[in-house]
């Protein structure tokens, strides 16, 4: 386990990565962190500042200067302001004098250099020399290398008492099986569920959140090393949802969540965006190549190609939605996330154009991926021609596939059944079973109507009437059972909006859906909506492959109602005071910028 953590620490590349871990680690070890890593502001050599127990058992001010990787001569002293020696000199000359809060000025100061990797032997003398020269009664130095950090992590966040052997085993297996993401996720999911069960109160809750964060980080860094970040992608979604669940549980009777947990949540979002960004960065350079991404999946099975492509499209959609949300919540001086959003849209369009498998899904469950990508158009009013072409072509293909009993979408979610579809698709009984229900058709139909594509809508309605009389057209809406189950999964929740019909035309269809959405305020009561963190909802739908609730997309499709996009959505007026309080608290939650959002190009 130590080797695992040690290698993880040594592999951390960016300052931000080690910075992200350290404060949580210190918090878990009993330190009180009063200054955290920040961008743009002058740090004067100090990345993290905290109050903790010194070697003499007394409180001391610990000033941490973080250097990822190994400490070499180059890292010690070169022209770069990021090299260590200048940072230490800045601490001695400026920080200690001017930045330590007044209440801590009487305490001793311990300057800690935090090295992710090792200190090279030839550097030891220099380090000792420097330490010796500047040590005084008030000021002392410590060296926290990768070995010590790993030890601290294992004695802290991942100690035996709070991460028992069985969970450590699950975690090790998750890492060992990174090149088999399904297996890795099985173990990681077990770890997450077990950790959630350990939530007994606010203190354990914070620790669990930190553990989730660091475990996900370790998984990600290892996965980077093997060149396959699929498991950490999914793990980051799960960890984010689990952390949201912990945040949700921490909401007090004033409707305010715990601020420490809030901070860990931001780290979890940051990590998720890191992994997502890395994934999107892998894909986007090749979306303009004809069949490029399809061929890169390296499978002879058209089922695998189809599943993978829609999976990619869904992730691009989710990424674009996060960028849109960040744009609305970023504070001044941070990255512009508009480009990230535009890139997501462009990438998605090119992906569809050059990979024709995206013109019809093979499973109804992929409707979620389609809905996520369509949501981008609703987030910002954009030219609809590409969407129009896509959906009209999809309708045509659906028509063709159903009538010829070809590769029509199945409502099965089991891989073996979907694979078997290739052999039995012409069988009538099989067809009826495979098309017993559809969320795809109502979604496409509503959009076709909104786009004014009457001919395509009518063709779809005719298809349903002639070939899919047995099919339950449906959508999904959250209800009171959704909030407790949405983020941790495991149980069915919400309500199916069934027996939707295309017979009466598109206007009736969209009106019916809108009416169903207005019927209750359960959607508005979902915590991500209350706290203006609606991307969490999309993450939950994506991870658990739930249909995107119609509440999020139906109103902009109605002809007269120009409801604002979800990013600026305000909760529906209600007499429920707790919700009002939560709303104002949500504004505080949503307002914090995400500093770890990288890869926004």
């Amino acid at each position, binding site marked *: 386990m130590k080797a695992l953590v040690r290698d993880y620490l040594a592999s951390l590349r960016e300052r931000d990565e080690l910075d992200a871990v350290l404060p949580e680690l210190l918090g878990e070890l009993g330190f009180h962190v009063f200054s955290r890593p920040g961008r743009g502001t002058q740090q004067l050599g100090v990345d993290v500042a905290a109050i903790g127990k010194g070697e003499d058992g007394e409180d001391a001010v610990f000033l941490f200067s973080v250097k990822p990787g190994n400490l070499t001569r180059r890292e010690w002293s070169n022209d770069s302001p990021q090299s260590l020696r200048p940072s230490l000199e800045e601490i001695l000359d400026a920080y200690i004098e001017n930045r330590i809060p007044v209440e801590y000025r009487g305490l001793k100061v311990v300057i800690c250099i935090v090295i992710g990797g090792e200190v090279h032997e030839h550097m030891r003398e220099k380090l000792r020399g420097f330490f010796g020269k500047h040590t005084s009664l008030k000021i002392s130095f410590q060296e926290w290398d990768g070995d010590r950090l790993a030890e601290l992590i294992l004695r802290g966040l991942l100690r035996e008492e709070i991460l028992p052997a069985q969970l450590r085993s699950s975690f090790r297996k998750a890492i060992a099986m990174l090149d088999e993401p399904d297996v890795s996720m099985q173990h990681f999911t077990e770890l997450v569920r077990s950790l959630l069960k350990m939530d007994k109160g606010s203190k354990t809750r914070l620790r669990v959140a930190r553990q989730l964060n660091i475990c996900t980080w370790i998984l990600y860094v290892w996965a980077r090393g093997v*060149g396959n970040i699929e498991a950490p992608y999914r793990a980051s979604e799960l960890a984010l949802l689990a952390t949201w669940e912990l945040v949700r549980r921490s909401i007090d009777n004033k409707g305010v969540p715990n601020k420490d947990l809030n901070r860990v949540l931001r780290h979890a979002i940051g990590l998720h965006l890191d992994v997502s960004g890395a994934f999107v960065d892998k894909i986007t350079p*090749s979306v303009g190549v004809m069949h490029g991404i399809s061929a890169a999946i390296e499978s002879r099975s058209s089922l*695998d190609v189809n599943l993978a492509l829609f999976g990619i499209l869904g992730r691009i959609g989710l990424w674009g939605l996060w960028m849109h949300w960040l744009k609305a919540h970023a504070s001044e001086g941070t990255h512009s996330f508009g480009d990230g959003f535009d890139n997501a849209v462009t990438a998605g369009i090119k992906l569809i154009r050059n990979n024709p498998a995206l013109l019809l899904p093979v499973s109804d469950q992929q409707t979620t991926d389609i809905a996520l990508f369509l949501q981008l158009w609703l987030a910002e009013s954009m030219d609809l021609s590409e969407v129009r072409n896509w959906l009209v072509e999809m309708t045509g293909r659906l028509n063709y596939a159903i009538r010829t009993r070809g590769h029509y979408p199945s409502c099965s979610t089991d891989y073996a059944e979907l694979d078997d579809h290739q052999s039995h698709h012409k069988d009538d009984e099989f067809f009826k079973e495979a098309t017993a229900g559809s969320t795809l058709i109502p979604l496409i139909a509503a959009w076709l109507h909104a786009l004014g594509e009457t001919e395509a809508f009518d063709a779809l309605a005719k298809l349903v009437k002639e070939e899919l009389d047995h099919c339950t057209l449906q959508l999904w809406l959250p209800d009171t059972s959704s909030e407790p189950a949405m983020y941790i999964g495991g149980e069915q929740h919400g309500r199916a909006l069934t027996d939707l019909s295309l017979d009466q035309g598109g206007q009736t269809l969209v009106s019916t859906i809108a009416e169903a959405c207005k019927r209750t305020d359960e959607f508005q009561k979902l915590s991500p909506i209350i706290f203006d963190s609606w991307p969490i909802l999309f993450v939950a739908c994506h991870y658990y492959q739930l249909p995107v609730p119609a509440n999020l997309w139906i109103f902009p499709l109605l002809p007269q109602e120009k409801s604002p996009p979800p990013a600026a959505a305000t909760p529906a007026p209600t007499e429920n005071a707790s919700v009002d309080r939560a709303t104002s608290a949500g504004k505080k939650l949503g307002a914090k910028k995400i500093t770890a959002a990288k890869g926004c190009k």
Partner: protein
Amino acid sequence: MTKVPSSREVINAFEDGTLAAQLATRFGGLDSAPMHKTAMLCAKLHNAGKIDLFRLAEDGSLLVLDDWRFFTATNFLDSVLPELDESTERVMTFVDKLVTRGGNDGAANLPNAAFREWCKRAPHRSAVVVEAAIEGAPLANKFLIFALEASMDVTTAKRIALTESGETAHAAIAALGRIPVSDEVSGAERLATLSELLNRDPDDRMRAAVLHAATNMLTQSKQRGVDALLNVVARAANGGEEITSHHAAQVLWLASDHLDNATVAALLASLRHLKPENTATLEFLDYGLASLVKNGFVEAAIEHVTGLLSETDCLGLESFDDFMRAIGASEDTLGEVAIRWLQIGSAVLCDGLAHFLQHGNPRGRSLMIPAAAIPRHVRMQGYVCRKALGWFFFLPTTAASVLVAVLREAEGEAISEIQSLLFDPLLINYGGVVDYLGNIPSGDPVHERIKAALALHEDYLKGIRSVDTIQEMRPSEHGQQIHRRRISEEMRRAHKSARKESVFLNLVRHSVLLYGRGAVSFVQGSNGMLRAVEMDLESHGFSMEYPRIASLDPIGLDYKLRLYRAEKSKQ
């Protein structure tokens, strides 16, 4: 075997009821000379009343033998029969039983030849049969033809044909065809009789009998037929129904080398509305069409098949495999037929042609299409190429050969269209087509035109190769196993189904080897010593190129091919 049995042995066998079996296992297996001696012995004993060979059929002991033994015994009895002194009735009854037991086997009718020989031995025998037939005896009617053949009594045959009706008349007509023509006058007289019968607007059976007789006279002549005879054949075929059609098909098969264009046309016309359930006629027609092709009536044969199959979907080209093999013997002819059928666009013809071209070559046979067969109209050139892709897509070499042939002669906008088609969907799906195109000599005028398509293909491949594998999206090991298991199961079922259609597997004994790379077994030699028989196993494999787009966009590919197939020519 050379040992001739003694009289005592034969009599004993008859008395203890084993004579039938002995005929099969012992006498029938003798070498020629001893068998003749044994046959004479049996005949002598029968005529002396010591044994009764006919009782072997009456008591069933001969008829219950298995096929192999039965035909061996019958073969022996055929050589005995002409020597027997018996009443005509008894002989006819005996022979009838043998023929009936023989069923549909090719050797079933040989006892009839023995009966003919028997009739020849004594002239009155034929007369008895003729008289009985005229009086309406059903059994005599069956043997009338042989009796008339034996007596070579053309005059009586003519008389019966013109005056009698039913089976009696038919048998006489058949005899007119089979009795060798001794001179021109005799031939002309018979022809006149047949012509007279046709003048009477005969029913289908009579017409068929006339046709059959005329054909026999034709094949006897061993040269191209006399006009008058050919005219009778043509007249007989015209206006007939199922039975006549059946005989018409037989004529085409057996006598094509004696026919002229008009007679061929008349015979084919009678087969225009052939019913699919008339499988025997269909089979003869297939042989007949193949024979027409071999004897120079290529266009007539092709036209007939084209017309027949484009008007119906109850028949398929698989019913004409002999015809197709005859067509396929000439590269030019096959190429012309392919273009013609693609232009017509009939699903039955094109699909059948695709199956034919697949035989023995999973990538399909390369077609050599003469320039004269390529349509001149620009739109038709594109149309033919699309059709070729629609029907021959899974035979990439065949499809490529058609496109290359058309591209060679193409003009104007057709050039770029065909180049485009060569790239997508052909090259984009089958990298192996590059090898085929690479074999086109640089001196060929089409060589330059192909380069554009190859360049598009190269760019496409460059693009795909520039994209690294996306590890994150690769299918899981579990998913791959599921997929492999399904494919394996499908292959297993296909293999099992194919084995059921094998003509060989029912003829041989199967041994299933569980281990080892070979087998050794021991047989007893003629000297009583054990002899080892060893056999090493060799591997046998089959591979085919899978179209790329079938994985990347199966719906798009299916739709495109269906459109190509269903497209109707605007001309």
